[in-house]
């Protein structure tokens, strides 16, 4: 039915099956859109956020998608700037994921603010001291870059490509993509960092606060680094998901292993930095503010020390070891375990850096603040997931996302 749109030679499920799948996810999407509408029309009272807990579930989702979308900038950097050519076989996917993640992040921000129609004040009345200003500028610019990176892929659709204008446009854009990828990588470094800075500069919140370099707290660098380190895990995870669902091999093992190895080394260096940061924070920064480490991890059933252990050891050291050691990395199951742990780890880190920050009491007589999201928050948090699933499915069905697909199909046949 839609075969004319499908890349030449690619095998895709029958349209009704695809349509049904999309409809199901679409229903979830509509649910999210409804919740989003409620938040816009009735205001943020639709959420369970409160004055103690002003950042909530979806802000975590926002930070998390940006972190895992980090695969896009990092792969782009590796391919275009460092010239690691094999990665061209996975860069398309990384770009699509990046585009989804960043557009979702912008959408979440638009829902999250109390006065969406004034959102642009962040640019117009910009306060250069604010990390959030930096985030806003970098995020929107980088999203523009991602769009530019995404367009050529769209133009490669079989039908669009037939139009000479689009064909040429696509060709030309490919030609200059390195410039954008480099710009993107630069912007992305900054905004991943500034997102880390958002928490790190909060000197009224000893749990979040970090000392740093010039105006940037250590979390600035740690966030960029962790996004670069763990982002590829998510790219790989999505690849594996596609391969699982379509029961086809889509990316060659050497590409996967290469990216996994790079990710592994990045995680290794990151986790060392993170451990040093944690030790310095626990031993110097926090005590100066009157806190000992366990003040942050006790007195509350949920935020126990397990969370730090899980983040650093289980989701940090373990995947680092698996991904750096060739034997483990090339073991399919271990690889899968490692990339999943990596994704969980970076998401957990973002959780801790936004939500635990809100929960930890600061005044000596304050109590732990906990909150349970409302259904509207859950729906709007799932919204981008549904949107992502739909967009990536469309991309997979109609665009040549995996350049090696045909070749692999032929060899495996």
């Amino acid at each position: 039915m839609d075969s004319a749109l499908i890349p030449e030679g690619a095998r895709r499920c029958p349209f009704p099956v695809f349509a049904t799948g999309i409809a199901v996810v679409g229903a979830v999407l509509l649910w999210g859109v409804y919740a989003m509408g409620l938040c816009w029309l009735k205001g943020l009272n639709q959420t369970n956020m409160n004055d103690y807990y002003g950042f909530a579930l979806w802000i975590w989702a926002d930070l998390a998608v940006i972190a895992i979308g980090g695969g896009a900038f990092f792969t782009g950097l590796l391919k275009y700037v460092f010239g690691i050519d094999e990665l061209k076989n996975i860069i398309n996917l990384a770009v699509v994921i990046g585009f989804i993640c960043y557009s979702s992040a912008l959408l979440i921000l638009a829902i999250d603010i109390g006065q969406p129609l004034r959102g642009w004040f962040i640019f117009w009345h910009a306060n250069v001291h604010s990390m959030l200003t930096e985030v806003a500028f970098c995020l929107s610019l980088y999203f523009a870059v991602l769009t530019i990176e995404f367009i050529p892929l769209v133009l490669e659709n079989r039908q669009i490509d037939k139009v000479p204008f689009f064909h040429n446009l696509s060709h030309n854009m490919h030609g200059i993509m390195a410039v954008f990828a480099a710009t993107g990588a630069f912007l992305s470094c900054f905004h991943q960092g500034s997102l880390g800075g958002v928490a790190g500069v909060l000197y009224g919140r000893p749990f979040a606060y970090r000392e740093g370099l010039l105006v940037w707290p250590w979390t600035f660098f740690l966030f960029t680094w962790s996004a670069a380190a763990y982002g590829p895990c998510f790219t790989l995870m999505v690849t594996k998901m596609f391969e699982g669902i379509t029961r086809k091999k889509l990316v060659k093992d050497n590409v996967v292993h290469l990216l996994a190895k790079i990710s592994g080394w990045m995680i290794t260096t990151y986790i060392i930095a993170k451990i040093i940061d944690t030790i310095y924070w626990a031993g110097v920064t926090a005590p100066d503010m009157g806190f000992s480490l366990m003040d942050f991890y006790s007195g509350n059933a949920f935020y126990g020390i397990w969370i730090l252990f899980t983040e650093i050891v289980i989701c940090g050291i373990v995947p680092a070891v698996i991904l750096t050691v060739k034997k483990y990395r090339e073991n399919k199951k271990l690889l899968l375990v490692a990339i999943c742990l990596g994704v969980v780890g970076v998401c957990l880190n973002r959780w801790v850096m936004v939500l635990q920050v809100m929960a930890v009491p600061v005044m000596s007589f304050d109590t732990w603040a906990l909150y349970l999201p409302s259904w509207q928050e859950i729906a709007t948090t799932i919204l981008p997931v549904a949107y992502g699933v739909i967009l990536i499915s469309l991309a997979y069905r109609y665009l040549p996302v995996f350049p090696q697909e045909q070749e692999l199909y032929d060899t495996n046949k």
Partner: protein
Amino acid sequence: MKIDRRSFLGLGLGAAAGVAASPVTWKLTDDSSIWTQNWPWTPVPHDGEVSFDDTVCTLCPGNCGISIRKIDGRAVKIEGKKGYPVNDGGVCLHGLSGLQYLYDPARVHFPMVKNGDTWKQISWDEATTLVAGKIKELRDKGMPDSIACVYGNDKGSIAGLYKRFLMAVGSQNFYTVDSMEKSWEALISRMHGLKASAAFDLANADYLLSFGAGFIEGWGSPVNNFLANSSRKERQAKLVQVEYRLSNTAANADMWVPAKPGTEADLALGICSAMISEKLHDADFVQKSGKAFDNFAKFVSEKYAPESVSRTTGIDVSTIKDIAVQFAKAKTPVAIAGRGRGDSAGSLMEFAAVHALNCLKGNFNKAGGFWTLENQDTLTWPSLEMDDVATKGYAKPPVGLTSVISTASLPKLFETINASEKSPVELMMVYNSNPCFTLHNAKAVKDAVNKIPFVVSFSSCMDDTAQLADVILPSHMFLEMSQDIHSGAGIAKRITALSKAVIAPVFDTKNPGDIIISVAKAVDGSVAASFPWENYDECLESVNGDQWSTLSEEGYIDSELTVPATPLVADFSIFEGFRGFPSIEGDEKSYPLTLVSVDTIRLASGSFASSPFAVKTVEDTVLIQKDSVIEINPETADKVGVSQGDYALVTTPLGEAKVRVNLFHGIMPGVIAMPEGLGHSFGTSSQVVTKGGAGLLSKNGATSIITATGGVSAASGTFENRYIGGKGVNVNELIGPITDPASGLDVAWGIRARISRA
């Protein structure tokens, strides 16, 4: 068409520039944000000329001087009046919320008559004729003594008018609410033979020994006491608080003495005993009491030696002796009784026990001392005409007469009504009082009120009692009316003030003075003749006589306190034949715990219902959503098996209530405390039919605002006050009254109870 890099970039930039240059996008973006800054549903208060008007707050007996900030005649803010002798600029949260009472749409907008379940609007003429008609009817039947009037307090010319009205129709059934002031008056009359009120010069006393008086949580004249307490910190004066629970006063005190509840007076006698045995008392002063003092000394040394008092109260012998020494050594110490608002009045003998300490020190009628302020009626009334019916009716004793102090008591009135098959009261008028909420065993009071054939309310708001009335003739709210104010509430000052109408009436209400004058005129005959004034303003001016010009010009008169002509003598014979203090209701076996009502200053519990602002300040350890929260010691909670935040069922001999639990280390194990001021029934709606038509209007209550001059526009609505109404339980429904054998007043301060998880 071939696109090269240059043209691609050109195209892209061109498109971007095009969009950027398009004014529509920018204009829309800008306009939409401007729109959010001017949302039509966010009110914009209009500006205008600023003016200030001074008056007196009458929400509680404190009577603070206040200043109203107005914009073009619209009241926007209440502030304390600097330099006013009661409060010097300070003002409590209830006074500050005055405008929320004033502009409350849930007020009674116009006279109304009950018609089954709905209220029907009537004109003032109809209302006055209706009430006067009923009164004439009863008088014609020769039963004027079946008319009764309940009035918040009996000070001032408006109270005077209502009292006069009852007398003129021929009834002694004039009731005021029992209060600690009454207990003190009864005691002073008994021990000093004076008709006087008690006053405490807290601002100058150097040692305050308080037996549960929450004197920084509302007791007496709140703001005045706050100031005294603050000055105490500077003067290094000591405060010792005897209380079973760490109240704000106890926390603020220098010493907290947690005597078991109900044993405070024992402790007082124990201290007396210690003072006497150490010869620390003022021998000269007590000597005038002669033999009676010797008997007292013997009695306390035998029955209330510190050792035995220590066992009853749980307080160390050394602490008792220390307090005795400190109290005796202090230059100007005062002992204060008047525990808890739950009782409103206190047992005469308990007061006597505490006052014995004052008598042992003889620190009377001087700076920093205990004052006996002789009742002086500054108002001069013209003579009263009583016809035959009136004379006969007035000769009959009031309903609910207590044998002991020969005044009618409000709790007794309702008890009598409930005990009779047919209510002895045919018509009851209620002004500035809400007995269906504030009296113990409130449910029974409601039953009694329901039994009265005709109930007339003069309330400005649809309170728990007005809801049960047959007709409401709504009074002004205090900011809308003039009246004379006379200090009391234990303050060692004599202030007469003029509270002025500072705001044009918001609804179609009247000054209660005018209401009763017009009712009297409509009753005709001798009753009308007794009310010769054209209106209340004329009455106010004339009864205030000489002091009127000062009052109207200065706003208040702060008179010098006068020392009684004859030196004060203390008669200790009150203790002769004394056999212990009244105990609370309920057997210890089935009710192992003690339930007491406690107050939070942030809730109004007598005098008025709390404003939305006040309720907003209430902590979540007092109210959670619609549930009252009880205070319980963690140790007791453990035994009962309840923990923080749990739902629990409190059961007393009177009933049960579902509440939530707050663990508090500061409350004595075995005691549970429940907040006062919650559980108003006016959260529910009743329909109103206006002259314009029927209808349940907006969710916040009635809508249209009636101008000062204009008539009633098509206003109809309900009287829902969702900000306090329907929240929590009224602790008075769980506690029953206890009649003090010595005074006849209701002196219950708690009840035995048990609790279980719910």
